[in-house]
């Protein structure tokens, strides 16, 4: 009965501690750690715990191999977890940065992505002329009617064909997207078959260097410049909407119109106007919302995958830690029994074993986070985006992710240390003293 109650209590402590670790903000956890340190330094029980811990830590060099197993096992979990989540974070950030809150993209109702959308020239005109659209110095609406199409080009890395997004843009696009800068060459000339290439697309695909030519549907296009936007537009190739339309036999139709709002609060009025016009069957949303939605499916998939892989690896590492710490407790059985015989209580013994495991775990977590950061921060990768074309993004090992990884490490260390610690405190003193 007492044993059952004690087990129940242990499980409860594990659940509570893990929940606290998962929920509490970093400063509260840090404060708890500081309070704990204060307890060790200032109180009698804490002093005992400190003394036992120091003895425990001093014996680590004698069992370096098994301690390394804890560190590396947990380091592996944290490293893989951070790397996978950094992929999700990087992709999400790349796409979210692409949009802004003051530009609105309008597509055909139900289209979801630009590639699926078709807007007639009349529709595009109607959208541009809305009063909520900002006008430039010449009274022209700040809008770009765009035509997104896809071309298949060989990749530099493996020679296999992959899709690159060609975005036909209006002349006014340069004013609409002021962050897009030409970094080499020049802008395309409206009306000519000229391309400017995003810096990531130029790196990823063969034959997109300035001066090279490209055959699309029997027509020859020339690359005249490279641009940098530092968002997902860098994976695109830009050209004049009208010329792209003729090459792809799209006539005067476009796939979307992007406009800049005249005032931050004008979105609702614009949406109401567009919805109220019987000539229009369109969906409109801020570009921030549009691009964020595009990353949702993939980032959720990677997050689920990363968490599943992390949990399974954590279980493996947990049993490794349990093995090591039970062995450590067994090896120190006599020493612990001696301490108990001298008058040390069970509490300090528990604290010392637990602390030792968590220190090893923390070390492993730091190691894993460091390796993940060194190998994967700003690591570039690409995947097929919602427009059926390659989107280049870089992994981002953010401080939040590293903290999250450390929390996983501490959680594994806590569970992996608690049971051996309780076991150590419960060893009968007489049996322990007789042990070899």
């Amino acid at each position: 009965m007492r044993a059952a109650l004690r087990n129940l209590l242990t499980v409860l402590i594990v659940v509570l501690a893990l929940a606290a670790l998962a929920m509490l903000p970093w400063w509260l956890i840090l404060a708890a750690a500081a309070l704990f340190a204060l307890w060790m330094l200032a109180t009698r029980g804490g002093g005992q715990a400190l003394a036992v811990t120091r003895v425990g830590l001093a014996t680590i060099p004698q069992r370096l191999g098994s301690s390394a197993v804890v560190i590396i096992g947990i380091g592996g979990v944290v490293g893989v977890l951070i790397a996978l989540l950094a992929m999700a974070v990087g992709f999400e950030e790349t796409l979210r940065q692409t949009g802004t809150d003051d530009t609105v993209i309008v597509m055909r109702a139900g289209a979801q992505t630009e590639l699926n959308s078709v807007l007639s020239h009349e529709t595009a005109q109607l959208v541009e002329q809305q009063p909520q659209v900002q006008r430039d110095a010449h009274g022209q609406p700040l809008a770009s009617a765009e035509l997104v199409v896809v071309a298949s080009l060989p990749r530099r890395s493996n020679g296999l064909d992959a899709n690159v997004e060609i975005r036909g843009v209006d002349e006014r696009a340069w004013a609409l997207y002021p962050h897009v800068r030409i970094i080499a060459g020049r802008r395309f000339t409206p009306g000519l078959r000229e391309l400017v290439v995003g810096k990531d697309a130029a790196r990823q695909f063969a034959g997109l260097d300035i001066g090279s030519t490209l055959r699309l549907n029997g027509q020859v296009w020339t690359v005249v410049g490279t641009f940098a936007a530092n968002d997902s537009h860098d994976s695109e190739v830009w050209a004049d909407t009208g010329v792209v339309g003729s090459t792809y036999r799209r006539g005067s139709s476009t796939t979307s119109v992007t406009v800049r709002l005249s005032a931050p609060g004008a979105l609702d009025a614009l949406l109401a106007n567009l919805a109220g016009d019987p000539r229009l069957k369109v969906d409109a949303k801020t570009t921030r919302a549009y691009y964020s939605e595009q990353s949702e499916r993939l980032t959720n998939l990677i997050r689920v995958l990363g968490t599943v892989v992390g949990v399974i690896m954590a279980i493996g590492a947990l049993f490794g830690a349990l093995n090591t710490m039970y062995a450590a407790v067994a090896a120190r059985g006599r020493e612990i029994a001696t301490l108990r015989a001298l008058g040390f209580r069970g509490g300090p013994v528990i604290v010392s074993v637990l602390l030792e495991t968590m220190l090893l775990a923390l070390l492993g977590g730091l190691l894993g986070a460091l390796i993940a950061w060194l190998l994967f921060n700003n690591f570039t990768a690409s995947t097929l985006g919602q427009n059926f074309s390659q989107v280049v993004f870089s992994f981002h090992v953010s401080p939040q992710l590293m903290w999250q990884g450390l929390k996983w490490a501490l959680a594994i260390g806590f569970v992996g240390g608690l049971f051996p610690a309780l076991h150590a405190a419960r060893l009968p003193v007489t049996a322990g003293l007789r042990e070899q």
Partner: protein
Amino acid sequence: MKYLHLVWAALLRRKARTLFTLLSVLAAFLLFGLLDSVHSAFGAAAQSVAGVDRLVTVSKVSFTLSLPKSLLARIQAVPGVSEVSYANWFGGVYQDPKNFFPNEAVAANFLSLYPEWQMPEAQRRAFRETRTGAVVGASLARQFHWKIGDKIPLQATIFPQKDGGNTWTLDLVGIYHVSDRRLASQEGLLFFNWDYFDEARQFGNGNVGWYISRVADPKQADRVAQAIDALSFDSDHETKTQSEQAFNVAFVSQFADIGLIVGAIMGAVFFTLVLLTGNTMAHAVRERIPELAILKTVGFSSRSVLALVLTEAVALLLLGAAAGLVLSGLVVGAVRAKLGTAVPLSPVGLEIWLQGLALAVLVGLIVGALPALRGMRLRIVDALAGR
């Protein structure tokens, strides 16, 4: 074999340690099973031999661009082509964009180019004869609880109807099965009749997305592909023809280098596993040195001591691996039953099992090697004296 009980006794010497190690091994191989299942789901289409006689013809500019239907008769006339069909991506959404599955409008003879999809003749006929007819793969039908006779409303994302409507209502007339379980992901598609699609869509009428041709002799596939591409050379709709396999390889590689990601994770997992079980084995042998010395004293040769320890390590790994693979099979089965083909997982089959068990033996030999050598080399006198 007659020493099996010795191995067994060694494993049971410290039950907790063996159990914990087994669970670590189990976790590693559970992960191996799951990731290999994902990996082969992506690789299956590319490795399949089912489509060696099929060629895919898409626009050279991009497969999102359509081709004129006038090419059909000209491709049919190319020597070596035995049958041609065509299809177009539809991209419809069922109820919610989250319920993604591929859906295509296909010509009446499209299914006959895919003999690996099995469907009763009556259903094939019904598909040809029902204007709004659709067929789906068995696992897709299971996922949405569809049965023959159901009406399936798809929301168009690309193709609204001429009358401006966005809902295409299809009649489910057939359900096909794929017997090769490695290709099970092909059971996640929906096809519907070309005639309905082409008549009712607002734009693009008379164009097709891609052509599929069957070649009479797969060895001639390259020559036939070149002949097909020559038809449209230097026109405004140049084509690119390749084997279905090559097309799939290029397509899958666009998502991500799945092999690289899976390989990197498995590398990290097995690196830690080797350290972990290696440590356990070293412990196990170290504390048994006197026992091993006694075995040698009663006449066991050094070599049999080596074999005993190695067998112990391999047995530990094999037990854990088998349990992990069984568990991964159960998990994959459960996920597939619940989510259908939305997640790319192929069943944990013989191939994954063989790879897993081979890996277990390999890891067992690696982690057992050092402790086993130590056991083999020990000198009886020193070991018994505790030196």
